[in-house]
């Protein structure tokens, strides 16, 4: 499964430098540290993560200006990536089987 992250880049104010990129971080548990998985150049505002392993992933992003200064962190989004569909046998007719005698 793939995961596509999208965000809205901010517009720099008068005392802010132009944006350079967006740092995207991920982790798989709150007990583990964040890891930067990519740095997306502005003006792009999405990132496709391919062949994501099943389970819960947590993502966040930060903007980086042309001087390398980083913004505050974005909200965190949790994505549950489903595992592959496993086909199981049919349920069966159970005890619904009956017989009647017909003339």
């Amino acid at each position, binding site marked *: 499964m793939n995961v596509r992250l999208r965000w809205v880049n901010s517009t720099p104010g008068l005392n802010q430098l132009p944006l350079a990129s967006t740092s995207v971080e991920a*982790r798989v548990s709150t007990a*583990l540290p964040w890891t930067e998985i990519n740095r997306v150049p502005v003006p792009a505002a999405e*990132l496709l993560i391919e062949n*994501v*392993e099943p389970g819960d992933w947590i993502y966040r992003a930060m903007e980086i200006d042309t001087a390398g200064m980083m913004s505050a962190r974005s909200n965190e989004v949790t994505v549950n990536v489903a595992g592959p569909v496993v086909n199981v046998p049919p349920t069966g007719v159970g005890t619904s089987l009956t017989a009647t005698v017909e003339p």
Partner: protein
Amino acid sequence: MNALGVLMIVTLNWVNPTQNTDGSALPPASITATRVEYGTCVGAAFGTKAGEWTQAGNPNTTQSPDLPAGTWCFRAYSKTAAAESLASNVAQKLVPLVPNPPGMLTVQQDLTAWSIVISLDRVAQIPVGTVAVGTVCDTTQRVGDRYVVPRSAVTFAGSVRPQVVLASCS
């Protein structure tokens, strides 16, 4: 030389003759082949012939068959349609013994288990849990400075349980 298992290929170069032994001109196209003998060495001299091969045409380079470790001597003969030259000088090459890789590479200090994340133009490694100390690493599968370890040795911190898990090994 190109490594091929414990065998190696030796590349030989030479300068083709431009004259016959009587001083007359020998056009390059007159050289039909170069025969190369290889064998043992006695000091810097050619010892016992072990084999030969022929390089057709008039190039000035050729490659040996796969040769096992040892010191090999080579000599070459220029051939025309009519005759073969005397032997060239002797070239010598050491084909070194190649040691086996180290065994029993295990996880010892950094016990973090890592998974691979691919996005756009980048591959990143992200922690997914911990590996039991002493876990034996798969030395045939390496990504950067980490090796594949068995999933059964990993304690996953979240619900992500990747098929391939990496760890630092020493």
